[in-house]
């Protein structure tokens, strides 16, 4: 028990005080050049709050060379926003399927939703 406490003492000096901001700075995700090792998992413990793999989201963000460091929590909320996005586009596409009196959602329903909804304009031309 004492050994664990002592071992923990060695590492505790690396930890910043409670402010979320500084913890995030410590564990920033390296993106673009530099190609260093990632500074640890995104938002440890928060991965079970997300339906999407945070590591994958992090990798996707990093694949854009312009994107700089991102905090763990940022990766986490982008994951959450993506979940909401899927919900939204699926429901919007369903409307078109129902208009066409179909029970199966098809690709053209998504295409229609993309065309009709302003926020989805960035998806125009998204290929398979």
């Amino acid at each position, binding site marked *: 028990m004492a050994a664990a406490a002592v071992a923990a003492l060695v590492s505790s000096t690396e930890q910043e005080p409670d402010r979320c901001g500084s913890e995030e700075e410590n564990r920033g995700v390296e993106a673009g050049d530099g190609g260093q090792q990632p500074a640890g998992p995104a938002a440890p413990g928060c991965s079970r709050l997300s339906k999407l793999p945070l590591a994958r989201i992090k990798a996707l963000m990093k694949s854009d060379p312009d994107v700089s*460091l991102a905090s763990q*929590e940022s990766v986490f*909320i982008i994951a959450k926003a993506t979940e*909401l996005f899927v919900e939204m586009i699926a429901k919007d596409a369903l409307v078109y399927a129902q208009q066409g009196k179909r029970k*199966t*959602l098809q690709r053209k329903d998504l295409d229609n939703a993309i065309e009709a909804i302003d926020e989805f304009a*960035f998806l125009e031309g998204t290929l398979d």
Partner: protein
Amino acid sequence: MASSSGNDDDLTIPRAAINKMIKETLPNVRVANDARELVVNCCTEFIHLISSEANEICNKSDKKTISPEHVINALESLGFGSYITEVKDVLQECKTVALKRRKASSRLENLGIPEEELLRQQQELFAKARQQQAELEQQEWLQMQQAAQQAQMAAASASVAQQAGSSQDEDEEDEM
């Protein structure tokens, strides 16, 4: 799952995760495969879109690291403001989890023992470890020496035996 294509830009969200989300959103609705595929790709685009916008917002601020605040502003400016309430709720949960973990680990670290005492114990453990290591090395050294000695003795008696053996041979010959 190692990717044999190895190209980082072929990254997408795993299909299974998307399928699950679609199923939860639209239970009892059949969804064509190519529609699912499109959703997967749309997610990739979405992530790039938000990251890029958040990155720009971050660059304009005095920070070097994209923060949740930047992401939230990005959502707003890109027309996804309706996501913000839920995103903020979940962010709060995430912070609470992180806070609990930090508290839990500091409780373990402390155990009510003051830092100086912990340092002292640490020094003790190091000293003990060094001592054990030294003893171990000494033992190994002794063993090596013993082994070497034995080998020497064995070699010596072997050569004596050989000499004795060869003189015996000569006697026999004489007798014959």
